[in-house]
């Protein structure tokens, strides 16, 4: 499996499907089918960036990592999945509905997106922030019901942030903030959780903590979670599937052990790397330093 040479054609969707089918239970929830996209500055200009046709599927309780270096098309793919942008060709379906065609409110009831945090214009308390996740369930100007409050409270508890409830969002640490943002996404009671570089500003402890929590949440609440990241080892540790992107091209889809090959990763990340298999059967990537080279 790991012998695929560098820059070979992308493995077909069937390949990963086969892998998944063997892995067991859970209905297919998300289907990305030959979805592509192109950015250009004007209608007549040549595209500045293209995401070539990408396909994969994700089931309930699955954590999928979208992996790749900067400017590989990770965020574009996330945008397509979230329905924020419409694919140029192909389809993205959540339980049979095309995500880009859903009404914003309906979409927000099914898909929650945790973005890289944006600065707040006016300070708000953590509970106010989490309560925003109930917005798609309210009508115009509806005031939150006790039920909404209970759901928000529960969401905070799920991420272990109950004690942050009355704190100001601009007065808590990055890791705490990330948990509150996750709680807001949980308050949306979605089917699909999308996380865009959730570990970006976190220290290693907080990173592991967050991903463990995500794993557990997906397991217990039947979420499908899709995480955009460039942390190779975190993805290897926590993802069921990895979608590997490079220069707008989907190179491989499959379980980490199948996707992580030394030649491929070295070529994509342009660094000398070493891939070993860890105790849990999951691959582990390390930097192959000059000293190691001579020693080996």
């Amino acid at each position, binding site marked *: 499996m790991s012998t695929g040479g560098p820059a070979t054609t992308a493995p077909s969707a069937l390949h990963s499907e086969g892998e998944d089918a063997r892995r067991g239970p859970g209905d297919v929830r998300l289907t990305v089918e030959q979805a592509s996209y192109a950015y250009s500055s004007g209608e007549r200009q040549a595209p500045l960036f293209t995401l070539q046709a990408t396909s994969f599927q994700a089931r309930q309780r699955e954590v999928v990592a979208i992996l790749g270096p900067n400017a590989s098309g990770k965020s574009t793919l996330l945008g397509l999945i979230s329905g924020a942008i419409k694919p140029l060709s192909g389809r993205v379906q959540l339980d049979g509905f095309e995500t880009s065609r859903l009404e914003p409110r309906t979409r*927000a009831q099914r898909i929650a997106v945790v973005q890289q945090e944006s600065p707040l214009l006016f300070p708000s308390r953590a509970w106010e922030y989490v309560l925003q996740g109930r*917005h*798609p369930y309210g009508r115009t100007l509806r005031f939150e019901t006790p039920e909404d409050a209970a759901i928000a409270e529960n969401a905070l508890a799920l991420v272990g942030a109950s004690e942050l409830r009355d704190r100001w969002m601009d007065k808590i640490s990055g890791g705490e903030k990330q948990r509150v943002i996750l709680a807001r996404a949980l308050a949306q009671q979605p089917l699909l959780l999308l996380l865009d570089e959730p570990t970006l500003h976190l220290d290693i402890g907080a990173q592991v903590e967050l991903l463990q929590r995500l794993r557990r949440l997906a397991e217990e609440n039947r979420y499908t979670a899709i995480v955009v990241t460039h942390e190779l080892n975190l993805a290897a540790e926590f993802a069921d599937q990895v979608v590997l992107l490079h220069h707008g091209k989907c190179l491989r889809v499959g379980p980490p052990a199948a996707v992580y090959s030394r030649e491929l990763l070295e070529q994509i990340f342009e660094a000398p790397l070493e891939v070993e298999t860890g105790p849990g059967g999951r691959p582990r990537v390390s930097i192959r330093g000059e000293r190691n080279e001579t020693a080996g």
Partner: protein
Amino acid sequence: MRPLTLRRLLWICGTLSLVLLAVVVAALKLGAVPISVSDLVLSLGRVAIGRSDQLPSEYRLIVFELRLPRILLGILVGAALSVSGAGFQALLRNPLADPYVLGVSSGAALGAILSLIASPHLPLLTPVAAFAGAALTIAAVYFLGRRKGQLDGGTLLLAGIITASFLSAVIMFLMTTLSSRDYRGMAFWQMGDLSTPLAEGLRWVFVLVLIVAGGAIYTTAADLNLLLTGEREAMHLGVHVTRVKLVVYLAASILTGMAVSVSGAIGYVGLLAPHLMRMLFGSDYRLLIPTSALGGAIIVVLADTLARTIVAPTELPVGAMTAMVGAPVFIYLLRRGLQ
């Protein structure tokens, strides 16, 4: 956790209404011609029981024909400017957005002046033209305020201030080249003035427009809370971003245009009222919009009462009073934002 309830909203708005009422009574009493509290109470009582014909005629004229219409105009203008200020702040994601600072008031003034030049005898055309001027200006400022496709706070403010200065120059040009006598003069358009009461017919149009446009902004209040955290995030939380932005853009422009067409460019009200209310009651737009409307009314009536009395019988432009308080607040918020 204490989510906003209708009860709390009504309670706060009721309290603010009482404050407004107190300010209105004070404004009715104070002025160049002294009127004692007992006389005022007596007059109000007589009007309340429908016997205003028993009032001494000059009291009736001063209190009910001069002060009251002016106070009512102040309430309408203050509410309109504050709600549109709060709307612009969410629309542009900029806490310093204010119709005056962004040049929107100048745009509205220019529109109004052009309509007065083109057809001076169509009173309804002036607010419409002022709305068009406001809408065009905010669109221009919005596009000038972008850097690399992103709305940039500093660039936006700079674009607004430069636009305001440019439009003021155009107004100055028009005022100088045309005989300015019938166009109310530079001071009116730049500093604002409430001394001319609304024409009878226009008054109800104004109230109606305030209710409709203010109400339109209010229906998006919950969406605006999310819009403030970012357009992308708002969209992912179920906000129909383009629709909400269009509604706020049009309604806020209408409110600014209408206010400017009848009272000139009274500055900083759209900044002062929402920020004061945020400090008092938090930044939830469902609470902020109605409290800003009341707060703006209080601020303008208060400022105008000061403008009428501080050097009586000479009157100061009300905009000078609001700017004297508003500009330092603007600087304070700007400095705080920079840190």
